[in-house]
Structures are given as structure tokens and as C-alpha cells.
């Protein structure tokens, strides 16, 4: 069951990511990104991280991407021009992507032993709530990073308000 979910939604995520790159209209690209995020949420859930999955859907696909789509609609952005592409993108992009792919494969393959012994998806059947575990970690051991992140977001909000209120 878990394997079937992984194959279906992994393929969907990859397809969405490719479509994101290939589509010429910004709205279509943004919607492909939504598909990628939703598929990732399902993958998280199948791994037992149900809270992460819900947060992914609510925060990323439900709030941030809606805002993206909203801005694209307001700006009425048209189709992008098809250029030959800059030489930098070709000469750096493809090798860079290949290098990242090789690096990740190397890490996963060399850490195979450690990954195999870890109980992925084991939390699904456990009696302890996933959310209880996440929040206990977040508010005890990770309290400082958590608070610092909150303050960072607060600063960003205040900055946005200042920018929006500035008189022309």
C-alpha cells in the first residue's frame, strides 16, 4: 500500500515539477507547483508525518500558493516569451542539476545501512500521537530555534506593513 502510494504520488510530483518548467503561462506553472506540494504532502503522510502533511497543505498549497496565483492574476501576467535561453543557464544549469543529483544519490547510497534500519512509517501504527511528539520536541528541545523563527517571521510582517504604508 505504502509502495503504491509512493509510486503514484512520486510520479505525480515529478510530472508536476516537469510541467512547472515546461508551461509558458505563469498560472499554469503555479498550479503545477500546487500539484507538486500536494503530492509531497501525501508522501509525508505515507511516511507517518501526518502533521507535516497537513501543514504542507494548509500553509503552502492553501495560503502561499493562493497568494502567488492571486498576484499573478492581479498583475495579469501574460505568456512568457520563448527565447533561445542564456548561455549561462545551459552551461551552469545542466551540470549543476547533474551534480546535485549525483551528490544526493551518493549520500543515500552510502547511508543505505542507516536508512534501512530506521523505522520509516512506524509512527502510523503507534499509539502516541504524531502531533504530540512534534509539539513536545518543538517546545522543549527546539524551543530557542522555534522562538527565533517566530521573531524572524514577526520582523518580516512588520517590514511588509512598513513598506505597504510608506507614503508616495
Amino acid at each position: 500500500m505504502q509502495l503504491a502510494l509512493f509510486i503514484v504520488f512520486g510520479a505525480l510530483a515529478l510530472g508536476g515539477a516537469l510541467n512547472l518548467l515546461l508551461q509558458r503561462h505563469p498560472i499554469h506553472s503555479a498550479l503545477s507547483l500546487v500539484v507538486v506540494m500536494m503530492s509531497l504532502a501525501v508522501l509525508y503522510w505515507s511516511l507517518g508525518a501526518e502533521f507535516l502533511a497537513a501543514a504542507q497543505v494548509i500553509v503552502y498549497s492553501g495560503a502561499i500558493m493562493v497568494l502567488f496565483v492571486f498576484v499573478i492574476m492581479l498583475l495579469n501576467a501574460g505568456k512568457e516569451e520563448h527565447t533561445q535561453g542564456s548561455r549561462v543557464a545551459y552551461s551552469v544549469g545542466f551540470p549543476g542539476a547533474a551534480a546535485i543529483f549525483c551528490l544526493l544519490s551518493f549520500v543515500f547510497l552510502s547511508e543505505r545501512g542507516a536508512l534501512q534500519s530506521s523505522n520509516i512509517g512506524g509512527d502510523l501504527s503507534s499509539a502516541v500521537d504524531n502531533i504530540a511528539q512534534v509539539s513536545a520536541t518543538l517546545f522543549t528541545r527546539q524551543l530557542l530555534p522555534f522562538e527565533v523563527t517566530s521573531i524572524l517571521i514577526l520582523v518580516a510582517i512588520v517590514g511588509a506593513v512598513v513598506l505597504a504604508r510608506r507614503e508616495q
Partner: protein
Amino acid sequence: MSHLNEFEIFLLLSALKVAVVLVVLLLGVAYTVLLERKLLAHMQNRWGPSRVGPFGLLQPLVDGAKSFLKEDMNPLAVERPLFILAPIIALGCALISMSVVPFGAVTRVQGVDLFQVANVNIGLLVILGVTSIGVYGITLSGWSSNNKYSLLGSLRSTAQVISYELALGLSLVGVVLRAQSLNLRVIVDSQAARGILSWNIFGGFQIVAFFIYLMAAFAETNRAPFDLPEAENELVAGYHTEYSSMKFAMFFMAEYANMITVSCVATLLFLGGSTSVFGHLFDGFLNTPVWNALFPVCWFVAKVFCFLALYIWVRGTLPRFRYDQLMSFGWKFLLPLAMANIIVTSFILAVRG
């Protein structure tokens, strides 16, 4: 069913549950429309639909047939795939939320719970997530219609929904804090002890949260007094101006299905879900298995029905807000109030526990 193994029984019963819930929900949607027309009519000293069937009871079926038989027009300038996708997203999301709602007490047949399609630990978050995806239906319909009124309507609606989503989500935190869980069954059970006295709205002192939820829910479902996206004197019909026939009907059904979902969530979180108003006072009365299974469902339906009636009553009573009033009400009043409610609730819980 001896020749079927456990998994097959589970699959079969689950499919059956989904089918039954879907049919009941769609019928509920149809008859909510009729209920609204009838109640509004009586509030305005009219009869409402009264020609088809006794008391106009067959009106929803005729309306459905009419939507099916009308010509399905696709304007030339629309963005085709998204234009068709938008009503599907809207209706799909409105129906999916229902899958985590527990309609009655735990009643197991062959190990499968009859009155809930899926019992997940994060049921409340699933509902919030699906609701937030439903916004895409409205956003895309306005944009893909290629019509300025549709676009303005959908921009208004999207801005309104994502603004009120915050107050809505925060108003539920107090209830979650009291129940210590996001599982809807656990939340319902936490209010079951003493009937109406232990409901979150009274015994839990979440009446402020209920007020915030009520306001935010009206805005979330684009209903009066927050129905600016469809303000017909400014925007023709808002985001579904260009839609006809069944595609329009899908938006229409989505609106009413959302109303039912919101009523279900209010019932579960604030009004004790499927538990009896009298608590365990009449537990010995008619103590048969069938009665014990069906009685909670009746309570649930009755509570949802009352909430829907409140919805319609408000629509028949209050005038529409102005757009800036709507926004400042949401951001400057409901949101701080919801935060204050969370702080007070968690403080009291910390002192008591």
C-alpha cells in the same frame, strides 16, 4: 460473508459508506436549498416554492433536472482547461471535507466503524486543509472566465476567504486545547459527560470562540452578510457569471455543501456532536443496539439542521457589509479576539491542570 477476508470486507464496507454518505450529502444539499427558499419566503410573508409536489417538496429534483437539460455554453475567450477544472475543484473540496466527520457514536460492524468514513488523528486539520484548497475553485473560475466582473468577484472572494481563514483556524484552537486532540471523535467525546452543560459553547466557556467561528464561517462560505463576491448590483453574479448549466449547478452545490460542512464542524466542536443534549440521563431508555446506533445520528442531524436554520435566518435579517468594513472586521476585531481567547483559555487550563 465468510468467504471474504478482512481486507475485502473493509474495502466493501468503506465503498458502501462513501456511497451512502455521498448520496445523503447531495440530497441534503438539494433540500437545504429548498429549506432556504421556504424559510426566506415565510420570513418575507410569501409562500416560496409550492407547486411541485406537496408543499413544493419535489422542487429540488425539478431544479436538478432543469440544470442538466440546459445548454452548456462555453464562451469563446475562456481559458478552457481551467474553466472546466474550477467547478470540479470547488465541488470536490466541498464534498471531501465530509469524509472525516463522525455522524454518530462508534458502531462497529465487522471491525468497520459505520458512522464515519475515515477516522484520522488530524481530522480537524484535514477539514481546514481541504477548505483552503477549495479557494482555488473560486480563484480560477474568475480568472479563466476572462470577464472583469468574474475576476473582481473572485478576487474579492479569495481575499475574503484567506483573511477569514485565520480567524476561523484560531477560533478552533481553544476547543483543541480543551480536548487535547485534533481527532474529531476525541473532541466530541470530551463534551459527552453532562450533556448540554459540558458542550464547549457552555461548559467549556468557548462561547467567544463560537461567536468568532460563526462570523468567520459566514465569510468563508460567502454567505450573507458577507456575500460580497456575489453582490449582484455591483458584479452581475460574481465569479460564476460565465458559467451555465451543470457547471453553474456545481458551484451552487459547492456553496450549500460548504454550508453543511461548516454546520457539521460547528456541531462537532461546539455543540457536542452526536451526543445527547441530556447527557447520560436517559441511557436506560429503549436500550436496543439499533436504537443506540441511530439515536446519536438523529441528534447530530438535528443540531446541524438548527445551525443551517440560523444561517438562513441571518441571511434573511442582516444587510450586506461594505468591503472595507468586512476586511477591518476580520483583521482588526475577529483576529485579535481569537488570539485573546487562545491566551485566556490556555492560561486557565494551565492554572487548573
